[in-house]
């Protein structure tokens, strides 16, 4: 159990903080021991946070959860179809881990209803998640198709960000 937590933390660090030092020097091998616990944890956290205090909470929860899960699968398939050569589960794992910044932004959105704070935190989370994913996804395909592979990724994170932006405040 503790080993799983350590693995999650290690993968998180290697994905989200792309600083090459020590054992995290090679991004390609960073997620070699991929695991799906981390992505599951973040998807649940995201869905719970975004549906907190909503009027139709279960609908929002299922929407967010399905969107994250299906979105990650569809994005990976998209990269493979465009000619990229990536390991399916490794890419899935990476996309799941990159939801972490959006989780943190969602927590901020749940905590406050100030539009400016929400927008800022969501933008920050979006930029961070995109900067973690885009090099991986864009590097897996041909140079001329880079935008085709990265546009859906940005779309996914933007839609999750929109869920956070229009979230109704808790306690209403």
């Amino acid at each position, binding site marked *: 159990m503790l080993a799983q937590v350590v693995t999650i933390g290690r993968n998180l660090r290697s994905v989200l903080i792309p600083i090459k030092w020590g054992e995290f020097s090679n991004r390609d091998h960073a997620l070699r021991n991929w695991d799906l616990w981390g992505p599951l944890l973040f998807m649940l956290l995201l869905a719970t946070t975004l549906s907190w205090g909503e009027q139709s909470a279960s609908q929002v929860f299922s929407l967010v959860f399905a969107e994250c899960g299906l979105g990650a699968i569809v994005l990976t398939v998209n990269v493979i*179809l*465009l*000619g990229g050569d990536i390991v399916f589960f490794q890419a899935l794992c990476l996309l799941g881990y990159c939801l972490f910044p959006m989780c943190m932004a969602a927590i901020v959105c749940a905590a406050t209803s100030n539009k400016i704070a929400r927008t800022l935190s969501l933008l920050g989370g979006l930029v961070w998640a995109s900067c973690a994913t885009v090099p991986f996804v864009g590097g897996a395909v*041909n140079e*001329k198709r*880079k935008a085709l592979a990265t546009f859906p990724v940005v779309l996914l994170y*933007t839609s999750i960000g929109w869920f956070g932006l229009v979230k109704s405040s808790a306690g209403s």
Partner: protein
Amino acid sequence: MGDYLRQQGFGGGPPSGAPTGINPFAQPHVPINNTYTDLQTSYEPYEDHEEDGGTVPSIPISTPASVTIPVTSPQHNQHHHPPSIDPSAASGGTVPSITPPPTAASSVQFISTTAVPSATGKIGKPENWGANQLGGQPQQQAHISPQDQQQQQQQLPLDSDSLLLPAPNSQQSSSYPFYNIRRYRPYFDVDTNEVLWRVGNSFIGAFSANFMQTTQEKPDLYGPFWICTTLIFITAVSGNFAGYLQWRQNHRDGADPASAVQSQWFTDYTKLSASAGIFYGYVFVVGLLVWLVLRYFRSDMRIVNILCIYGYALSIYLPISVICIAPSDIARWVIVLLGTVTSGLFLFMNLRERIMAAGPGKSMPILLSVLGVHAVVGIVLKLYFFSY
């Protein structure tokens, strides 16, 4: 190496017709005979010939009157005339001297190039080259000079391709089983600029209907799928935003508790599933129906082409969704109808030739029904989505 060439029969006589052997000289620096005794220039020996210590076309050792000048004949370019090798060079068998054609007496052109004179064919065992050669190549490569080896390695894949197991690449992707994603790669074989062109063409393409011709060989399903997905997202966002603006206006104007205006804005998530159904359904289901009708009339249209064109036809609703945030209802109607007419014309003009080729008698009803369905979808979009 001169010995080897002579053994292969390259020594002796001027070439009648281009010899199929590979010119061993990478640069046309060639020694010539004493026709040009009055010209003497310096040159640079080869840097890349290592065997005999630079004997080709090295310093004229024992031919007193021969000079070495890089020479090419004015009439022939170097691709058609590899110089002949004269075995009668006086240097002890290791320096083949080249006799230029006798007509090139007027001028001497100095050329400096590293271009390899093109040659085809192989040196070695030509007859069964490539036949079960997976293990057999290394011993043959020992006889071949580096340049020949390079050229043969370039030619090898053409021969041995049929003998090696076909590795599924983009041309042979149908060798994957149906559950393997890579089998469907040819339908996503587009670059960014092509996708952008197709989207732009669907906006203005009613006037020059070249979409179908351009995408005939390489239709893609990337565009239809992601345009539909983006449309779902954008209609949800714009719809909710416009509704929010409306609510805020109502909430400010009449702070009347008895009015139907709710006290807080709640985002409407129910339309997402409906919009998914409408957009995906229009592209894929209606596209399938059109294809079935065309098949009934024995057209050879591929379903991918039809899905491609239907998908890109919907791309005009992307900016329309954003523009329809503006609160005026008349403007919304005008914009939506304009977009519907444009994309309808786009569909019409591009499908027209194919449908007419399919069944000349029945083409008009088919085309009209295509247009009619599109118009209905446009109106439904307006009433359901864009009337915030």
